[in-house]
């Protein structure tokens, strides 16, 4: 066994020191009738065979890099600069644990502090935590936080139908045990018209930017109305879009959360990703998750520690703001390295490239017969196309041309059968885009 260093002599010496004859004797407290059951298990694989086995399995996947991919819908294919994986592959980072002992964890702590600062910069908020599991759980925790901020007295959550469907589903799961009702599923509503549902019973109003259909909804006046009713405004934001567009904080949002995967994290079949979570300073004590703060050491040198942990489960137990313990620290590190690599100008330039390419494709598709670009509002890197056939059928035909088509909106919105959510990033060259347009023409 390569990972267990004990020789026979080591074992004998240790057992002798302990004063037992066999290792099995150490399990004397376990009821004998359940000890050492028979397991049905495959034989162990040596390292070479193991790698071949998994290589074979991975070859049974169609990886997006072998295709022209126009699929997004919450998981995005952006280019990951080489530095990102290089840094997160340093085992000083990935084999460390939660930095409970700050004197020997300054690397992780400072990196998280920088991450928190970058998320604040992106979202226009004052505090950000060290991460949640993903975008969906960040939204759910934001809703629970709003409920707690308002002392569990308000039992209604108004959530836009164009918040990612799986985030909405996850939030519903999270609030099962709480006295909370989620409303706002009517897809004929946009952010502005949903606002009328926000009343004195409402804990929070949840909208997404860009929304699940890729649109930039008009956020003017929302903060005023929501705050007028005494509720909180939660915005689910795309971090790449925030490189180009105004921060939700500028519109008066109270909590800004989102999926951080587009920031330097591979698609990896849906995880691990990271949920980013930011809010205003006044709510920091109600916030879930780990927080890193600046302080000094005994000699007055600047250093960083986990702080305000009286909110957390290991101190507050059943009165904690959440049960979260492990988060997605390494993914947050990847996000921080990514944001530092692109920086102020790079992120904006990237967002503009996505914007222009998506609009180029939309213009070209709108020239096709049998297709209609349904999106009329401003959009970012995704938009909706009505197709002449069911999307599943379209996508099978596109696949024959090495194209991974867009997301089938009929899966979540019955009235949007035949509607495809198309995504364009910097990874899609003009050649790819033109190829898609030609293919659409052929399969109509």
């Amino acid at each position, binding site marked *: 066994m390569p990972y267990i260093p004990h020789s026979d002599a080591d074992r004998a010496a240790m057992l002798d020191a302990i004063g037992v004859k066999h290792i099995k004797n150490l399990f004397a407290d376990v009821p004998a009738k359940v000890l050492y059951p028979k397991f049905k298990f495959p034989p162990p694989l040596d390292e070479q065979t193991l790698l071949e086995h998994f290589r074979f399995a991975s070859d049974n996947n169609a990886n997006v890099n072998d295709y022209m991919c126009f699929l997004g819908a919450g998981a995005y294919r952006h280019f990951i600069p080489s530095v990102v994986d290089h840094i997160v592959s340093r085992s000083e980072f990935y084999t460390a644990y939660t930095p409970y002992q700050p004197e020997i964890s300054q690397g992780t702590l400072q990196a998280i502090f920088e991450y928190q600062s970058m998320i604040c910069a992106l979202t226009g908020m004052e505090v950000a935590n060290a991460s949640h599991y993903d975008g969906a759980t960040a939204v759910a925790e934001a809703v629970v936080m709003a409920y707690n901020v308002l002392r569990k007295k308000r039992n209604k959550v108004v959530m836009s139908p164009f918040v990612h469907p799986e985030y909405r589903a996850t939030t519903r799961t999270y609030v099962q045990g709480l006295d909370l009702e989620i409303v706002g599923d009517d897809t004929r509503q946009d952010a502005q018209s949903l606002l009328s549902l926000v009343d004195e019973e409402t804990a929070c109003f949840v909208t997404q930017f860009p929304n699940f259909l890729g649109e930039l909804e008009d956020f003017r006046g929302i903060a005023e109305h929501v705050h007028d009713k005494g509720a909180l405004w939660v915005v689910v934001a795309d971090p790449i879009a925030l490189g180009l567009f105004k921060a939700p904080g500028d519109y008066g949002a109270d909590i800004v959360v989102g999926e951080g995967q587009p920031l330097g994290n591979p698609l990896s079949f849906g995880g691990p990703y990271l949920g980013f979570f930011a809010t205003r300073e006044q709510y920091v004590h109600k916030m879930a998750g780990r927080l890193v703060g600046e302080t000094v050491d005994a000699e007055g040198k600047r250093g960083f520690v986990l702080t305000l942990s009286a909110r957390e489960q290991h101190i507050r137990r059943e009165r904690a703001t959440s049960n979260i313990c492990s988060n997605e620290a390494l993914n947050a590190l990847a996000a921080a390295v990514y944001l530092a690599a692109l920086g102020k*100008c790079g992120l904006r330039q990237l967002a503009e490239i996505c914007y222009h390419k998506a609009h180029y494709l939309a213009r070209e598709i709108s020239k096709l017969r049998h297709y209609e670009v349904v999106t009329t509002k401003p959009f970012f890197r995704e938009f909706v196309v009505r197709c002449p056939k069911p999307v599943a059928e379209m996508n099978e035909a596109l696949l024959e041309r090495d194209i991974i088509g867009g997301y089938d909106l009929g899966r979540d919105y019955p009235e949007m059968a035949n509607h495809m959510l198309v995504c364009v990033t910097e990874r899609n060259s003009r050649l790819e885009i033109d190829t898609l347009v030609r293919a659409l023409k052929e399969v109509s």
Partner: protein
Amino acid sequence: MTEPLIFEISRPGRCAASLPELDVPEARLPQAFLRNDLPLPEVSEPDLVRHYVRLSHLNHAVDTGFYPLGSCTMKYNPKINEVISRLEGFAAVHPYQPAHMVQGCLYVMYVLQGLLQEISGFAAISLQPAAGAHGEFTGMLMVRAYHRDRGDLGRTKVLVPDSAHGTNPASTAMCGFEVVEIRSDARGNVDLEDLKAHCDEHVAGMMLTNPNTLGLFDENILEIAKIVHGCGGLLYGDGANLNAIVGVVRPADLGFDIMHFNLHKTFSTPHGGGGPGAGPVGVTKALADYLPGPIVRVEIPDEESLDEGLYFYPFMPPKSIGRVKAFYGNFGVLVRACAYILHLGIEGLRQVAEHAVLNANYLRVRLQDTYPLPYKRTCMHEFVLSGKIPGAEGVRTIDIAKRLMDFGFHPPTIYFPLIVPEALMIEPTETESLETLDAFADAMLQIAEEARTQPELLHNAPHTTPLRRLDDVRAAREPKLRWQP
């Protein structure tokens, strides 16, 4: 030794990324939506790399030294798993590609479900939860759904031992249950009399870690299960300490109805500085329909289409509590754990548990005459000492912990579990050699001696680390949670 913040090495105009030229005509930007300022750092690639590499040097990690953090199972993270998880056929797969394009991913998930079932004895597994606490929350939502589905609406209480991880009461509360704390007895087991006194028709279930956070196997586990089941409750197992019994005992055989696995503990996936983890949940047959989905099923071809092979597909259980996160789960973590289990086989896993327990007992024996051992029993994969060294009354556990750093060791978990004053919770794991254990024990003994003779050496520790002891109080009183120019 300190490193400037990335914002402090930023200079206008620098950028570490090179983006592709725009190859399409520009579209009109919606002016009303555009932002004016984006205060992100601006650095070159060499500066960026040096910054993070220097930061990495400030970390203690499993790959740099012994990390006996109790209840965290900081074992070695095999490198082959890193290679496998980065294969392009796994890393570059979109979760919304149709099932026929992602058969490899679904295969890995199906295999892992089966392996975890066999290891635990449970009937069904959901791989969706992203961490241990997430698995606990998932499990307790299932407890809630199970009772409600039977029309049993009066079960509002969940029993949690006083030795439990803080996540247990927190997860319970998130499901709307009331937490009732159960005492431990003099041997560190659940106090059966206290348990019986609280078991009634209002009990939804009990959350139990076995071995518990004292590192002790609860000798009355079968009796506990009988009592909890007897009042109609379900028994939830916190799988954080599975490393002690993997391949030796199946948790389902102990009477647990639900249990989460910490793949980042027992199954060697790296902790990443705090995450990502994965917290799959296993359940008995009676609870399988409530699992969060999607879980993976297989279609076995009939004889005529045998050459088409197996077909794996995602499935949502009929009474599912719903999804607990987006997409499938932390796939990149799942694939590492699957590789680890297939690499070791069941015999290898049994050796993992046996050597984890051997290592812990060896350290216990070496230290128990110097540091008070409140529960004098054979331990499992970890044990809890008290930092109240006789003859060194002015020294606290925090001082011992900080002094350990000067010897190159990460301190154990401290001040937990709460029922042991000045607790030091030590979990060596199976991947440490006798020499490392001896060096650690020697350091602990020397520190105990120093505590009696030169306590200021401990009070002022650490002495050799990049920074000296940090001021936690100041951090909490005057929170500075982000960089500001």
